[in-house]
């Protein structure tokens, strides 16, 4: 099984996000970026499958500006065998939508004959959660979304456990398939310095977006990005009974 894994470069989860003064987006310049955490989980699962000899090759994919090469090299350091960078400008990258990413993935899958595509369930910057289902639709492959466990089901099938509201949903999918990784699927390994150094020798292929014939004209227009409302300062109460009275008054506990 040859697995393609999508990895997106996003503002690091620990960074305090600041909105640009003109409200056109968030400040990204001079800000620590890293691989989207859910993509890290997807990658880890693919690498684990390879270590279990269930997969033969893991290829990392990123659609983005020049610096996306960084997350691809991180992916190589974490165990991917090869990487593909579908290149756009930074300006274009800021306006990409799930649909464009799915289109680009579709082209790569068709060109290089993959058996599975692993993606994060969402990117922590735009929270769209759409790439995996759109891609499954485009490829007409089965989808296993929000995966929290992946097992071999034999005879060209995989058994995937999905976390759903109030329980677990276990499904069997036929390979080839699209998977999106949920938080509890695994704990991704760290990219170690020695592996980062070794990764520099692994192949990273650059493909300009125009070579894929994917139209990335935006379909949505961002009107405004604003800071979340500032939390109001709390107040002190004298004792527990005052607290209970307050909570009742505000309707947080039943009277």
């Amino acid at each position, binding site marked *: 099984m040859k697995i393609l894994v999508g990895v997106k470069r996003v503002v690091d989860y620990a960074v305090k996000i600041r909105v640009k003064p003109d409200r056109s987006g968030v400040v990204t310049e001079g800000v620590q970026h890293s691989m989207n955490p859910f993509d890290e989980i997807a990658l880890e699962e693919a690498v684990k499958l390879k270590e279990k000899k269930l997969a033969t090759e893991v290829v990392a994919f990123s659609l983005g500006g020049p610096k996306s090469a960084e997350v691809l090299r991180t992916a190589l350091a974490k165990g991917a065998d090869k990487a593909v960078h579908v290149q756009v400008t930074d300006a274009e990258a800021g306006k990409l939508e799930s649909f464009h990413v799915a289109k680009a993935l579709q082209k790569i899958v068709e060109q290089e004959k993959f058996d599975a595509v692993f993606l994060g369930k969402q990117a922590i910057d735009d929270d769209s959660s759409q790439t995996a289902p759109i891609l499954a639709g485009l490829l007409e492959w089965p989808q296993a979304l929000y995966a929290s466990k992946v097992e071999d089901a034999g005879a060209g099938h995989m058994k995937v456990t999905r976390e759903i509201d109030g329980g677990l949903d276990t499904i069997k999918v036929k390979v080839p398939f699209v998977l999106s990784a949920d938080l509890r699927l695994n704990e991704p390994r760290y990219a170690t310095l020695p592996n980062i*150094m070794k990764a520099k020798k692994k192949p990273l292929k650059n493909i300009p977006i125009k070579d894929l014939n994917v139209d990335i004209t935006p379909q949505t227009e961002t009107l405004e990005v604003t800071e979340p409302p500032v939390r109001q300062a709390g107040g002190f109460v004298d004792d527990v009974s005052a607290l209970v009275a307050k909570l009742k008054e505000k309707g947080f506990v039943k009277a």
Partner: protein
Amino acid sequence: MLSTLSKSARLNQTRFIRLSHSAAAAKDAKPKKVAAVDSPSFVMNLFRGKAVTDQVFPYPLNMTDEQKETLGMVMSPLEKMLVEVNDVVKNDETSDIPRAVLDQFAELGTFGVLVPPELEGSGFNNSQMARVAEIVGAYDLGFGVVMGAHQSIGYKGILLEGTDAQKQKYLPDLATGRKFAAFALTEPTTGSDASSVRTRAELSADGKHYVLNGGKIWISNGGFADVFTVFAQTPVKQADGSTKDKMSAFIVERAFGGVTSGPQEKKMGIKGSNTTEVHFDNLKIPVENLLGKEGEGFKVAMNILNNGRFGIPAACTGAMKHCIQKTVDHITTRVQFGKKLQEFGNIQEKLVEMISKLYATESIVYMLSSNMDRGIKEYQLEAAIGKVLASENAWLVCDDAIQVHGGMGFMRETGLERVLRDLRIFRIFEGANDVLRLFIALTGAQHAGKHLAEQASGVGGLIGLAVSRVTGGNTGSNFGQVVDASLQDSAKVLDQQIALFGQTVQGLLMKHKKGIIDRQYEMHRVADAAINIYSSAAVLSRATYAIKNKSSSADFERKVATYYVDKAMKSSNRFLKDAGSGVENASKVATIESLAKEVCGNGGLTLQHPVEL
């Protein structure tokens, strides 16, 4: 270096010429006239009242995109591990960092940062290393000392001075953390006076090994290290056939047998870091484990310390950032007198003080590491300034962070008291700050002294010198071209202080001549002025760099730089005026001496209690 200083304080004035960092000068017993040489170092030239800015402007940071990217790739895993794998509170409570934790960091590559990849290291340069040390310092200074004792001093000697065979044999295991290293110099009677070690290594009759005997104290990683860089006296044949004890450096393995380590010391801070006595009992060192040349151990030690010195400022930079973040979190939420603390002028000033101290320190760290990366060799004074300034700024910043936290700052759960305890050692080890101040002032003064002597013997002689003193020297600075236009006011004041510095040092040299070595009152102040001046130059360079590169914080940096330089130049002026006021100082120094003598002579305070009981 340090030893020459402290000894010379005892042996008095004859050592002036010997007050050199170079082994050549240290080797020579007899003082002889050394020709004045020009130095490319900014601080060295400062002592001649000259602004030689090649090593300062433009800001030398020059990481390739690839180096930046690799660094970026390890930063988040490193931070994650420092939060998730390492437990700083527990380390402090148990006075230990479990080996399992060290092993995980070893996998990450943090124990071989500067070792080339061919020897299983990470192949980072000094600037990348500084950034790594900064992150570690922000989370756990004790862990930072384990790392530093291992790679910045423990095996640094092998990296710098080792033969190819020594490197091949030791560095792969050390870089990967399969083995740990320690630096063993200090002894009960040998602290700042580094060359006075008593541990001895004598060549065996068959010439195959040295037999090592002696004891070291306060050795970081001493309890578990597998490889030690040990400094010991060896009898060395002189040209005239006699033998003389000289310090040599050795690579000693615990596996050689004869090494015993004492228990973990009970310390004020950096408790997670292991500190123990280490004893060597008839330990056989194969001759091929001599590090550097026989008799040149002092040079090896100084080279190691000098080379690793930027690690402490980097760790302190991280600690300061941590304290500032905590301060911001606190003052933007805590309400007193009906307002958030952030609204009070005094709180704002404290915060800005912290920021400007951080800015100055960080500017020096990356100036130093970048200069080392581009192969500059003469940075010993700059490195010493970085160590002194960083360790003191971090202490002050942490202290202020505690202050603005009020009672919360005193509480363990806030975590700042631990940082304060941890930071205290940085002013003591790897060159006590007081001794480093003397080193800075006297090395610089010696350099200027040689030039002065040469000048005085030339045309015009002393009269010329006296005239240049009165008219005020021209520093020859190019600040007009290299400093951003918006910072020219600051640059002008800096230029004036450089001139005043040169005049003050010249005045002191003319007055005290070789006796300057015993003028610690003046020398400390000269060093303090040098620290203020060099840090201001670094700050102006960094801010200019930010402005030129249109950094998102360029405007902020311009303001911080202006604020810092203004304060630093006022301090510098005060220090120099004080150092230069001869008659006044004579009586002040006499008072100090007599008061101290009286108390020491009495074996305690001679002060009568006001209630006479």
